Each structure stands twice: as structure tokens, then as C-alpha cells.
């Protein structure tokens, strides 16, 4: 007898849909149609009063040889099996590619007007999860509340805004968590203040990173 589909689903965003994540809608699924072509880009958009803030992407990636669609494999939807542990590290405007120094990166960080991180959707099943962390330069007074947004856009025209105001004043914060589940991306607003990039990563269980200090991962 066929198993009926789940009766409840979190909100889904199709093609040119648009949503603002927050208390009313904490999470959204980007459908394969919305997230299946080109790239999904996450950009940090802030006003000039925010100063020189930055965006980092803490990630877990499956290796090339992992067979993400094989039933029961470590890369099967949501799996954590030890046979092929994911690579864990950080992309920033200075350490741009993931995997590091890859000619065909799954993640590519950069900067136009603002810092951004792009996900190559042709390789989306290699992504296990991605945590977007906003941060102020070391030594900047921490009394200024965060303002602005992370803006997620897809090639198909879908857009997700993640306001930063709920973070309050903090040196850094986990602003958005992205999980790959069966080829779809689930986006979830985090608004979790942290003392540093390292603290933000550890609050989400990214333990397999070696740190030079609280702000600098060993690449």
C-alpha cells in the first residue's frame, strides 16, 4: 500500500516567489524548480552606517566520490554516515572557493557592492549544509545593532530576505542556516548572536574546523 505523503509542509518558494524570513515564517524550502538551475546567491546588504561588515559561509561538503543518491549512502538525504565524512571549512571574500582551490567550486565567495556567497546548483547535492555568519571587524565597538538583510536570490527569480535587526548588537551572528535535503534547499533564519565566527560555527555543530584564533579558520 503506498505511503501517503506528509500532510504538513513548511512553506515552499517556487520560481519567482518572494518571502521574508522571521517570526511568522522561520523557514522556507526552495523548490527544485526555484533552486535547480544556475546559482543561488546570498548577499549581505547593509547601509553605510554599518561600516565594514563581512559575510562568511561555514560549510559541510560531500566529496566528489560520494554517491549522494545511493540509498543508504552517507550522502543520501540528510545522512551523516562516517564512511565519507563531509569536508568542513569556511568561505570568505579572502578564501573564496569551496572546496579550497577547486577549479569547479560548489561555493564561491566574493564581493561586488557587498559580500556574497554563491552556491552552484548543478552540484547542490554535494552541499550538506551552509551557515551564513555576519561579522564586524575585530576591535570595532559592539554597541551598534545590526541592520540590513541577507538577500537570497536564485537564477529563476525567487528571492528570500532575512532581516538582521533581530540579532541586536553583537560582534558576529549566525544569520541564516541552509540545509540540503534530497536536492532541495531549506533556508532557516537563525538570528543567533555570537562573540566570534568560531563561536557562531560551534553553536551549529561545525566541530571539525581547526582555528588559528576565534576569527580565523585554518584553510
Amino acid at each position, binding site marked *: 500500500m503506498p505511503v501517503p505523503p*506528509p*500532510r*504538513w509542509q*513548511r512553506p515552499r518558494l517556487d520560481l519567482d516567489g518572494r518571502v521574508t524570513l522571521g517570526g511568522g515564517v*522561520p*523557514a522556507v524550502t526552495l523548490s527544485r524548480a526555484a533552486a535547480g538551475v544556475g546559482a543561488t546567491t546570498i548577499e549581505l546588504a547593509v547601509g553605510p552606517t554599518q561600516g565594514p561588515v563581512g559575510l562568511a559561509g561555514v560549510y*559541510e561538503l560531500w566529496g566528489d566520490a560520494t554517491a549522494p543518491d545511493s540509498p*543508504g*549512502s*552517507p550522502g*543520501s*538525504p*540528510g*545522512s*551523516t*554516515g*562516517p*564512511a565519507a565524512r563531509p569536508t*568542513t571549512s569556511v568561505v570568505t571574500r579572502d578564501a573564496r572557493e569551496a572546496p579550497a582551490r577547486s577549479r569547479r567550486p560548489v561555493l564561491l565567495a566574493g564581493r561586488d557592492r557587498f559580500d556574497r556567497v554563491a552556491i552552484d546548483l548543478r552540484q547542490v547535492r554535494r552541499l*550538506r*549544509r551552509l551557515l551564513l555568519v555576519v561579522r564586524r571587524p575585530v576591535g570595532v565597538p559592539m554597541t551598534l545593532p545590526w541592520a540590513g538583510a541577507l538577500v537570497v536570490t536564485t537564477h529563476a527569480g525567487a528571492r528570500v530576505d532575512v532581516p538582521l535587526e533581530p540579532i541586536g548588537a553583537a560582534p558576529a551572528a549566525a544569520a541564516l*542556516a541552509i*540545509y*540540503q*535535503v*534530497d536536492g532541495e534547499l*531549506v533556508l*532557516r533564519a*537563525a538570528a*543567533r548572536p555570537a562573540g566570534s565566527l568560531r563561536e557562531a560555527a*560551534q*553553536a*551549529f*555543530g*561545525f*566541530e*571539525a574546523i581547526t582555528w588559528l584564533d576565534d576569527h580565523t579558520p585554518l584553510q
Partner: protein
Amino acid sequence: MRSWLRRSRADAAPDGPSPGASGAGDHDPDTPQALTDALAELEARIDRSGGRLPTAATVAALDVTDLAARLLETTLDVRVPDVEVVLAVRGLVRDYLPTTLDRFLALDPSVVDLPLPHGPSPVEQVVDQLVAMADAAADVLAATRARDIDALAAQGIFLRTKFSRSDLDL
């Protein structure tokens, strides 16, 4: 559970305190504020476990906490919160969800992808369990919003029967 029932009856009195008021209930583990705090702690724990939980389990577990938060919200704007709603949130936050997570996280990571002799792998089981829990929590929320007392009671019984101490067969 008993303490919340006692408070609900006290609140029904004409001059009784509001459900979220402080005072004698400060040590009541089932006040809306206490449950909100427990929910926040549970969410942080799910996030910290993100490296070990399947991603499908992480998002389903966080769906459950979202739905529990919405259920809690329905108790804040009424003078006498429905005991069934509070029992459902209490069960989700203090028993069904943490027990399910604890049982999975206690396993040796080297075996979580392997099918068990009597059923699917622990990864498949924990994802199925958490998706079913989100479904059930959504049904409780729908019954609460519809003010359907019979459906709410039935869903409350279903939650307790299916998830009490977790039926994860690991």
C-alpha cells in the same frame, strides 16, 4: 502537569492572575514562559547537533519546535489556556522530541546508515519519526485554531500514544 492544571483552575477565578503572570507560578515548570525557555534551549541543542543529525532530521526537528512555538502563542492571548494545548507542548518539548533526538545521538555514528535486522536504518527511522511528529503537531495546531475541542483532545491522545518516550525502534 499537575501544577499547570492547578494554575488553570486558579486562573479561572474572576480575580485570578493572568497565565503569564509571575508570582506563585515562578517555579511552575509548565508556565508558558517556562515552556518558551525550554523551547529555546531545545532549538539551541538541535543546532549544536547539526553535525551529527541527518539534515532532514534537523529541519524536521526545527519544524516541530516552530509548531510548538505557535501552539504556545495560542495560550498567551486567552485567560484560561486549554490544558490539552499545554500538555501537547509540554510533551513535545520535554519528552517526545528530546527523547527521539537522544536515542539517535546515543548511537555509534558508524551504524546509523546501516539497515537494522528488523527495519530501516536509524537515519531513516529518525527522519520518519520527526516528520510524523511535525504532522501531529500541525494537526494539534489546526484543531486549536479551529477551536475544535473534540479534535484537539483526539490529537492530544494521538501525540501521547505515538510519541510518549519515543517509539523509535533502535
